[in-house]
């Protein structure tokens, strides 16, 4: 009876919990340069090795190696470093302001900066971006003034959302960055629709969208994949696998027996798994997928293997569910540090210049904060007019909302 076969319920367990040392062998890493760079017209089904392996360019000596080296000019790399560092400094500063009670909520992208920054830099200004809430690097690359972002975080009189959204849920029509929902994964199939429209109109713009590995469990992921495959939509579908969805590790999203990128070929969509902390690799993979889309080759599913070095948001304490020092042992390192060391190895950067840049960016962020708070904070005036609550529900205000606006005015006296 002891050997009788029977059903079992498997409950995934993360490689480590608080107090443990993480065994990262589950990542199945490959050395930099190991993956060949195929033609962009490679059939989707033939991308399985790319989807199961790992595209890396920066090696342990901080050199760019292999077929995926995008051969980006040093000036571009320096700009990328600046955008990533600005993102990080901005995040740190906003985290502190939340702790001081100046804003209600914040979400950092610490450790994942290369994903947004390298991708936005590899795409064209006409390409439409459908982000999640951890893609602030897109805004840095496309040049949204920091004051505008801060005013949104403060829900103040210059809040782009007019006080209607949680902090971080930005949007920017002019910069072609879609409104962040706050509901997970909904943007994934929407980006496919945007890309279908681009193709219907005969334009060569592509769409790009980002979800976490955790929310790839939503039905929206499946619908997006099916529509992308069926219509061969020109879209880059990114899964940012940062290992943690609040407290549940990536095994709870289906990452134990397969990579997330490998779902792509299963749908008939090209899949690539990339070192998400390697600026050059992310840049190269994005260029490949964008060129494929622009040449009619259809969608690409890109899994970025990275690590959420920060808490999920200001509302959770990660030391309660994962080892405190896990990021220190994360085998793919830190994206800012790696690009910095690469530029130094090229002779195009130095520790001294880095310190100087960091100081300048700190001052830039501080100056923007001083300006933003002049327009009010959540708790201190000036405040937005509560009448704004009733606008933009529909294009024209219906009568019942006009009546409710009057009622609120009467309530407020």
């Amino acid at each position, binding site marked *: 009876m002891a050997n009788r076969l029977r059903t079992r319920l498997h409950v995934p367990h993360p490689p480590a919990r608080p107090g443990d040392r993480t065994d990262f062998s589950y990542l199945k890493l490959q050395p930099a340069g190991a993956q060949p760079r195929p033609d962009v017209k490679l059939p989707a089904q033939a991308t399985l090795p790319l989807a199961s392996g790992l595209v890396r360019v920066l090696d342990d000596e901080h050199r760019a190696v292999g077929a995926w080296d995008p051969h980006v000019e040093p000036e571009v790399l320096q700009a990328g470093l600046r955008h990533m560092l600005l993102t990080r400094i901005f995040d740190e500063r906003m985290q502190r302001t939340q702790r001081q009670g100046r804003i209600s909520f914040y979400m950092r992208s610490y450790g994942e900066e290369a994903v947004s920054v390298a991708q936005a830099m590899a795409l064209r200004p006409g390409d*439409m971006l*459908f982000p999640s809430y951890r893609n602030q690097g897109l805004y840095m690359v496309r040049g949204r003034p920091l004051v505008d972002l801060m005013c949104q975080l403060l829900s103040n009189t210059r809040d*782009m*959302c*007019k006080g*209607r*959204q949680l902090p971080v*849920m930005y*949007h*920017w*029509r002019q910069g072609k960055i*879609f*409104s962040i*929902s706050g*509901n997970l994964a*909904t943007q*994934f*199939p*929407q*980006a*496919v*629709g*945007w*890309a*279908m*429209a*681009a193709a*219907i*109109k005969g334009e060569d713009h592509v*769409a790009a969208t980002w979800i976490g590995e955790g929310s790839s469990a939503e*039905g*929206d992921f*499946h*619908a*997006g994949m*099916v*529509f992308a495959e*069926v*219509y061969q939509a020109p879209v880059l579908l990114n899964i940012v696998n940062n290992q943690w969805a609040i407290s549940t590790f990536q095994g709870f999203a289906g990452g134990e027996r397969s990579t997330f990128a490998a779902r792509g070929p299963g749908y008939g969509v090209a899949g690539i798994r990339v070192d998400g902390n390697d600026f050059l690799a992310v840049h190269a993979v994005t260029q490949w997928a964008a060129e494929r889309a622009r040449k009619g080759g259809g969608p690409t599913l890109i899994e970025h293997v990275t690590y959420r070095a920060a808490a999920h948001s200001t509302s959770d304490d990660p030391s309660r569910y994962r080892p405190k020092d896990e990021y220190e042992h994360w085998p793919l390192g830190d994206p800012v540090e790696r690009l910095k060391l690469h530029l130094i190895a090229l002779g195009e950067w130095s520790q001294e210049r880095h310190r100087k840049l960091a100081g300048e960016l700190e001052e830039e962020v501080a100056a923007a904060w001083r300006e933003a708070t002049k327009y009010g904070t959540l708790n201190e005036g000036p405040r937005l007019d509560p009448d704004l609550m009733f*606008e*933009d*529900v*529909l*294009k024209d205000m*219906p*009568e*019942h909302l006009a009546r409710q606006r009057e009622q609120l005015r009467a309530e407020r006296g």
Partner: protein
Amino acid sequence: MIQALNSAMDVMLERDPGVVVLGEDVGYFGGVFRTTDGLQRKYGEHRVLDTPISELGIVAASIGMAVNGLRPVAEIQFADYIYPGYDQIVSELARLRYRSAGEFYAPVTIRTPCGGGIRGGQTHSQSPEAIFAHVCGVKVVMPSNPYDAKGLLIAAIEDDDPVIFLEPKRLYNGPFDGDPGKPAVPWSAHPRGEVPEGHYTVPISKAQIVRAGKDITIIAYGTMVHVAEAAAQSLGLDAEVIDVRTISPLDSETLCESVRRTGRCLIVHEATRFGGFGAEIAATVQEQCFWQLQAPIGRVGGWDTPYPHAFEWEYFPGQKRVAMALEAIMSAG
């Protein structure tokens, strides 16, 4: 009514290159109810698209297309199938303009056949208008005749706000007074069965008095407009019958103005009664017409059960149920 809806899409596909029609079986086949018949042949498969069986995907793709400058007309094959797309409607389509402070919006029209009376059972008969009426940021429309169907659909497609366009499928091929035993009547004999060619609109958010009267105001929409008229006639009542036409935003002024005159009010819909849209109308009428009311406001709807296959006509709020409610209100006070 099928031809009227088809003509509305035809007119808009012709006039506006941004209009696209998408949904399950809408392309080559022309839709399971033939509503999109011939449109793909005429406008090509980039304008009239068959889609995967994914209501979530249909709504989400429509949002993305609309954000990229198109004006999608999405068909959900049956209103009963709309729920996989519900999150995309409620959390995305309806909220986009608000959450982005007007920077982004999605002019999507979602057409979907609703209501029973075609032996559809509980998965092909539902009337979910109240569920959408409760969502701020979408308009909800339900026509009761071909003239309105075409005019309202064109207005919906031209509207910059999202519209849930519910089509009572029992009315597709003719008016229906609630008696399944009678031979089918074609729309050609009905005064609002005549549909002009070309472009015209019927305004959204405007109810219509379809029969003027003095004794009581009957507020109905969709199939129930016809049932209510017949029920009142059978009792010899001089009822004022109002077709709501747009569930949300509601034209409460037309409804209340009538009730203030008649002093009595019955609300009739096919959907389940509890938490149904009739409750919202009743509350509104009570708030605005209390001192003119001579009797309690009545409500008739489907029973608060799923729509059963074998007991379709016992479930359906037919003339008898409406007449009994009318008598109760007329004898009160």
